[in-house]
């Protein structure tokens, strides 16, 4: 079984994010970049499936500028077998990303595609579902447990109403939630080995995809700040203020 995993280059989740001087984007000076944490979880799951003998090959794909090679090298160091960079400097919206990934999927013909439920920059949570629609495949979003057996996937999903379990035949698109696993640390031997693993670079045009971005970020601002209120000395004062000042109880 071949597994395709998409990884996006995003700001490090612990980096301080602020608007740039013109308020048109974030300030990217000296910003540390990383693999999108949810994609890292998806990749870890794919590697574990390979280690468990359920998968034979793990292919990582990223879309972005040449600098996204860095995140693909991380994926290779974690344990992916090879990597594909669809190189473009365009800012793409989710449908465009889904179309490019669909073309990569058709070229690679995997049995399973794993990806993060969302990227932690735009927090859209769209691409996996769009991809499943374009490819007419079953989908399982927000996966917190995946069991592969007899050509089908049983997936526990974290929904607002609790843990939902669904089952679908493969191939399918599954998006990873936080509690699916804890990604491994990359070992030095992995980093060394990653250097000799194949990393192919192609373009959207090579895949025959023409993208048209229709959703554009035009302005970035800090949300209105909430100011700290007052300290109370005991529960009696708290209840009195909630009742008489805030009037919420």
């Amino acid at each position: 079984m071949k597994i395709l995993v998409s990884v996006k280059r995003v700001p490090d989740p612990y980096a301080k994010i602020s608007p740039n001087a013109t308020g048109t984007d974030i300030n990217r000076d000296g910003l540390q970049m990383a693999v999108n944490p949810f994609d890292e979880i998806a990749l870890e799951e794919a590697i574990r499936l390979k280690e468990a003998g359920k998968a034979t090959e793990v292919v990582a794909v990223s879309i972005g500028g040449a600098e996204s090679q860095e995140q693909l090298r991380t994926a290779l160091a974690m344990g992916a077998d090879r990597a594909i960079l669809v190189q473009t400097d365009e800012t793409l919206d989710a449908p465009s990303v889904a179309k490019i990934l669909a073309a990569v999927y058709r070229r690679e013909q995997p049995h399973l595609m794993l990806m993060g439920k969302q990227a932690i920059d735009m927090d859209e949570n769209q691409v996996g579902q769009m991809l499943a629609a374009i490819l007419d495949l079953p989908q399982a979003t927000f996966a917190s447990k995946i069991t592969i057996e007899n050509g089908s996937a049983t997936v526990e999903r974290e929904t607002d109403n609790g843990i939902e379990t669904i089952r679908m035949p493969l191939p399918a698109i599954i998006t990873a939630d936080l509690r699916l696993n804890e990604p491994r640390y990359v070992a030095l031997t992995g980093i060394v080995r990653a250097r000799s693993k194949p990393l192919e670079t192609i373009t959207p045009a090579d895949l025959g995809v023409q993208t048209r971005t229709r959703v554009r970020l035009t302005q970035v601002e800090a949300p209105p700040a909430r100011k700290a209120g007052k300290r109370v000395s005991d529960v009696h004062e708290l209840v009195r203020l909630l009742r008489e000042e805030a009037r919420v109880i």
Partner: protein
Amino acid sequence: MKVLIVAETDGGRVSEKTLPAIAFAQQKSPETFTILAIGDNLQGVEMLTGYGAQAVLTVNHPALAKPLAERYAPVVAHYAQQLGADAIVATTTTFSRDLLARVAGLLDAPMLSDITALESANGKLVAKRPIYSANLIGTFEVEGSHVVMTVRGPAWGKPEPKGASPVQNAEAPADIPTRSEWLSLQGGGGGRPDLTQARVVVSGGRPLKDPETFEKYIGGLADALGGAVGATRAAVDSGIAPNELQVGQTGKTVAPELYIAVAVSGSVQHLAGMKDSKVIVAINTDPEAPIFQVADYGLVADLYQVVPELTELLKNSGS
């Protein structure tokens, strides 16, 4: 703008989580919106009929008895096209995130997730939505006449009562894919109000030790206020509280009238899910905890002492 609202259902019953999407439609397209509810033998449809929608369409079919995106998406796409909808809208939840992005994929439509504001400028839709874990607000322009949107519940509130809408039974399209099967749902309920809908939310962090302690102190205080229970990611990860109670970046977004954070330090990720609450109370032993920076009322104290006191005081005074 012609709006199609997709009602949230669990396949058997309409959820009140639909209401903010109706409030959105009342504000942005008061004359021309239709509500679509999908399931099998659907109950609670009358919840949707008092808000001035042109019609409430119900699609009932045995294959739609559980809310699987693969099965529901073609139904939504079918009626969006039939009605000539310019916008397909639902309240942001895991149900709508799963379903509407698939609908957008089927229709090749652009999508905006979790919007807090929407205007029209120079023939383009301009929306605001939280980005970077709600650390920033982004303004987005959308090209083209069709768009799929999920709307952030707390930003749109509740709809106004308006004229009655006719309920129309609509046929399910013939080609519903049935590859995905629904097997089970664990958790939820417990007799308390829904976390995202509740007027009062009491949340607890990891210092609550274990599920019994968490339920006794956090559940007890929530019950004294008729409120819902929430939890931090740390509390959920350490098994103290179930996953669906998590408030924050990867959990739920809540904006109740009163949010009481008990032994919650106030990580950026947690704040992302609750900082729009009207009044925030923080109870924490650490006076430097970041939660105090957003709290309207802060009490530096040991929860094991003050939470029972507070619970008793509220019970005895009949709040």
